């Protein structure tokens, strides 16, 4: 999946010429993350194939899509809104009932990116479920990029990043100013553990989970890898446990072990109990 140096340099030059974007060496992960979906949608076998087509031909729609993919920041707080409503109205209430005995909630976010999603989940829990104060919450958030994991751990975001989807009352409650940036308050930050993890490599032990977030990452993988990841999730998700996927993703045709549940305007997947 990793990009060759010459291909990365070609993409850097293209972006500089077309969009005046300066991409520093070391941003290979960003190119990979942004351009793999483009490569797939244009029928390319991988990033090497995509860059080959850019070099020889460079058809306008492909160049445009590449530039757009590299310039659009898809990460935001409360991304798509509805999954977080479903988390509050269905998934957590159900989990509270199931886990009332041990008072322990175990969650995993498998595509943490720069941290907006796991921190959003924690804000939903803190705002809507004060009764969780007496519970043990194990929340692991992973990403393939060590640079992203470092950013998650730092919990520091620019004003541009904070503008994207963050309700202002929550900004004031859970963040503090740090120079020109905003920083997640420790009370929220200490409730999640960030670690690197490659979904396409053998997984470390994750224990038995109640809720899994794997949003907007399956689009990067081919069908056999998607199947392998979904099978892996079923193995670590308790029967009746919940899986969140991105709005353009589904288990349909990939894995029959999940039940599709509509909650409000969101779709959530549930590990079948049988």
């Amino acid at each position, binding site marked *: 999946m990793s990009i060759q140096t010459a291909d990365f340099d070609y993409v850097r030059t293209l972006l500089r010429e077309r969009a005046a974007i300066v991409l520093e060496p070391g941003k290979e992960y960003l190119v990979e993350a942004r351009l793999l979906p483009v490569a797939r949608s244009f029928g390319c076998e991988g990033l090497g194939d995509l860059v080959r087509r850019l070099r020889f031909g460079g058809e306008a729609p492909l160049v445009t899509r590449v530039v757009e993919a590299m310039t659009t*920041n898809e990460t*935001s707080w*409360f991304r798509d*809104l509805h999954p977080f409503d479903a988390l509050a109205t269905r998934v957590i209430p159900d989990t509270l009932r199931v886990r009332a005995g041990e008072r322990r909630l175990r969650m995993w976010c498998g595509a943490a990116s720069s941290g907006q999603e796991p921190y959003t989940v924690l804000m939903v829990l803190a705002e809507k479920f004060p009764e969780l104060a007496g519970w043990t919450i194990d929340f692991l958030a992973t990403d393939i990029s060590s640079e992203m994991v470092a950013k998650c751990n730092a919990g520091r975001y620019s*004003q*541009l990043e*904070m*503008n*994207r*989807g963050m*309700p*202002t*009352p929550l*900004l*004031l409650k859970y963040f*503090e*100013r740090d120079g*020109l940036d905003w920083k997640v308050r420790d009370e929220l930050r200490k409730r999640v553990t960030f670690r690197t993890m490659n979904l396409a490599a053998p997984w470390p032990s994750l224990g038995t989970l109640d809720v899994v977030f794997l949003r907007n990452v399956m689009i990067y993988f081919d069908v056999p890898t998607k199947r392998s990841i979904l099978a892996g999730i079923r193995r670590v998700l308790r029967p009746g446990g919940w899986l969140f996927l991105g709005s353009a993703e589904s288990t349909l045709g990939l894995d029959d072990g999940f039940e599709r549940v509509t909650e409000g305007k969101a779709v959530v997947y549930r590990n079948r109990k049988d």
Partner: protein
Amino acid sequence: MKALIVDDSRAMRMILARTLKELGFDAVEALHGGDALEQIAVCGPFDLALVDWNMPEMDGLEFVRHVRGTHCADSMRIVMVTTESEAERVAAALAAGADEYVMKPFTKDALSSKLEIIGLALP
């Protein structure tokens, strides 16, 4: 839906007007808080006001306090769009009755996400 842009910078009014048009709003412009109150009286009601903080005659915070205090446009959602970014300032704007707060610089996506938060997303 109708929007009111309140900003003393012509360049910023143009940027906001273009962004709002792309988001499906018809926008009217005002140069400061006092001008905005006249626009509300003449062209209102508005669904949304995007309000700068630092302006001559009547600044953004004063405008928000006036609108909320006099109930002259209760249904109008107010979003502050400003370079003021200290937590105390943000808190003061919300306490005065602003519904949301956008810190400059911002992107169209960011503004759109804030409008969605306050229930003004267009289909």
